[in-house]
């Protein structure tokens, strides 16, 4: 149901509600970021950002890390808003993901010249629902990546409707930014092309394709893409050493897509949103899933009349959902694009009901159900805040236990006993107890040993349970701390330090 722009009242109401949705989205994302301790992936990213801001250098690692855009963009934003590397906390560290997520809301709301009720509702669901709230405030590439994906989708649609050199160049540059954020962009490029073709009346019309794939235009797009690629990976043409690695990364990511320890069933993503209980807590978003499927079906049926941007948005997310479900490697945040599309599909379902010629009570009921569902999504988001880092929260994955903060606090308390001297700390284990290195980044007398047996008995010794030397019992006091689900750490504190600490209690 398009909003009548000639009717000023409708237009102002749309603007007002849109701004309200954005304000709500920002508030919920900040709230969630404050409630949730850093995931190890977030801490690794934060550490790289911190190093970039401290040293001005970013080292791209094609083995397991992603492109430089998130860090570079974050460093610029932090410079702009005046956040120093020493002032990072849970919320300001996640500023760029929050801004990216909010920018996507704005794109849905105000990206089209013809505002649509479906867009307003979609933005509402995306702003309030638990999954996008979490990953809209998660210091990984996903929120920025999803935003760039949708920008590229709409740029592609614009190009497709009337191709020219400028639009080809724009597509090339956005694609470069997309790849420089995260290498799985290649999957999304396939989905964007599939969605663009799927909504055309004659997707394989020879003349239409020939016009859009004209050699000159393709050359401009590729040229812009190459320019953007080199710009991002060479730190604005200052260091070309990482360009080869940026290409080699695709080989590694092809291998990783086979699972790398994160293999899950083809129904994994569906199971995240389907009703289930986890140790006494009920989860699930069946109404969203069902209404999203209805919206998809309505768009297919109404393909002649439904706005192309809405059709493309929903098709894009659907193709991503299928591709990611097929690929063995699965982590929840890979569903963020599909969830954005799901929100649009649900919004379209309700807008179709409201705009239909059905009995007016059915239309009122449609509005009522939409508002009720928005309320339900908000309630689930509040539940998610309570279980922000709990292993029973289905939307998070291998998240750091909230109780890990106790270990961080303990080290700070012991360290505060003698501010003149830095504690010497040994951390053992294959995973370095991340996010611990992030919290200890300012301490120069911390060492990390992959083999806990090799660790010296320093002031504090930390490692996985059962791997540390029993002789520590002669000189140190042990504590248990949770790192994440089923992963416990032993923290051994030198007895003299412990006694001094207890004097302060």
């Amino acid at each position, binding site marked *: 149901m398009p909003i009548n722009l000639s009717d000023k009242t409708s237009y102002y109401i749309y603007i007002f509600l849109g701004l309200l949705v954005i304000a709500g989205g920002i508030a919920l994302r900040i709230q969630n970021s404050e409630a949730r301790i850093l995931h190890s992936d977030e801490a690794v990213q934060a550490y790289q950002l911190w190093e970039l801001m401290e040293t001005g250098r970013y080292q791209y690692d094609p083995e397991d890390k992603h492109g430089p855009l998130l860090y570079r963009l974050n460093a610029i934003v932090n410079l702009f808003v005046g956040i120093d590397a020493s002032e990072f906390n849970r919320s300001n560290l996640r500023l760029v993901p929050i801004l990216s997520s909010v920018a996507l809301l704005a794109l849905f709301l105000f990206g089209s010249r013809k505002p649509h009720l479906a867009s307003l509702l979609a933005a509402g669901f995306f702003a309030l629902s638990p999954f996008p709230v979490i990953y809209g405030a998660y210091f990984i590439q996903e929120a920025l990546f999803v935003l760039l994906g949708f920008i590229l989708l709409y740029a592609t649609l614009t190009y497709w409707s009337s191709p020219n050199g400028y639009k080809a160049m724009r597509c090339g540059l956005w694609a470069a930014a997309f790849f420089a954020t995260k290498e799985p962009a290649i999957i999304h490029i396939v989905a964007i092309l599939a969605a663009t073709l799927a909504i055309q009346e004659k997707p394989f019309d020879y003349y239409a394709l020939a016009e859009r794939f004209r050699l000159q235009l393709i050359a401009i797009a590729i040229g812009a893409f190459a320019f953007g690629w080199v710009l991002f990976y060479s730190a604005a043409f200052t260091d070309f050493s990482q360009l080869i690695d940026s290409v080699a990364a695709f080989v590694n990511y092809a291998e990783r897509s086979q699972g790398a320890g994160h293999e899950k069933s083809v129904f994994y993503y569906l199971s995240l949103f389907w009703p289930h209980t986890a140790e*006494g807590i009920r989860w699930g978003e069946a109404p969203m899933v069902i209404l999203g499927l209805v919206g998809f079906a309505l768009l297919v049926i109404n393909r002649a009349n439904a706005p192309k941007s809405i059709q493309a948005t929903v098709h894009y997310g659907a193709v991503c959902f299928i591709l990611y479900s097929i690929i063995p490697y699965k982590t929840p945040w890979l569903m963020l694009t599909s969830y954005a599309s799901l929100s649009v599909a649900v919004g379209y379902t309700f807008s179709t009901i409201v705009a239909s010629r059905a009995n007016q009570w059915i239309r009122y009921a449609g509005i009522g159900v939409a508002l009720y569902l928005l309320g339900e999504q908000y309630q689930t988001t509040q539940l998610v805040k309570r279980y922000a880092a709990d292993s029973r929260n289905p939307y998070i994955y291998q998240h750091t236990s909230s*109780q890990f903060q106790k270990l961080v606090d303990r080290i700070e308390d012991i360290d505060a006993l003698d501010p003149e001297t830095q504690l010497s700390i040994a951390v053992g284990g294959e995973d*370095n107890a991340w996010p611990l290195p992030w919290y200890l980044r300012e301490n*120069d007398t*911390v*060492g*990390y040993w992959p083999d806990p047996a090799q660790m010296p008995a320093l002031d504090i010794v930390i490692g996985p349970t059962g791997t540390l030397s029993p002789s520590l019992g002669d000189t140190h006091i042990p504590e248990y701390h*949770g790192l994440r689900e089923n992963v416990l750490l032993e923290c051994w504190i030198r007895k003299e330090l412990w006694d001094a600490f207890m004097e302060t209690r």
Partner: protein
Amino acid sequence: MTKKLISIIAVAALSVSAFAAHHGGKKALEIEFPPPFLIGTPVQVNLPHLEAPGTPRPTIMVPEGTTNLADGKEVTSSDDFPIIGGLDYITDGDKESEEGYFVELAPGTQWIQLDLESTSTIYGVAIWHFHTQKRAYHDVIVQISDDDSFESGVTTVFNNDHDNSSGFGKGTDKAYLETNEGKLVDAKASKGRYVRIYGAGNTSNEMNHFVEVEVFGTQ
């Protein structure tokens, strides 16, 4: 950071050399601090059969006629409205840890209290918090008293609050990993009508859980 680290190690090494010259040629241990390595998303750890790595259960000698006095008895708590489950689960005899068998209390320091209905001689208290995950519960404190408000005549038979964070005094008992065997506490024939068990979250989250509590004694 690497530069900073190298400078500090270098200064430390020089200091050690100077120190050694004044200490009969002895050399202090020199430590090189390896930097952290950046890891990928951690993979899931599955531990289907948990075994406590610690001490075996204590052997408690009890007289004939010792029974589980807590069986079916009333349980009260500092959290009157548990987040999940009911307080009656704690004395219903079911020790499974799955959904429907445990009660989840609010975060922070919380307690449950069992009323044995008359003053009893208590030899042992067995506690099952939650055992489908590898975790340890913080600040487990077991007290016995004839005073239902636990303001007088309190005997503490177990306390592993080693840093006194719950404020009942520093405990000397050790932390332990939860298993399906539970934790058996030697109550040393203490006398009392009420048994109170404190906790302050666990290594996985801030919540407090109880599956079952058994109190072995005579009345």
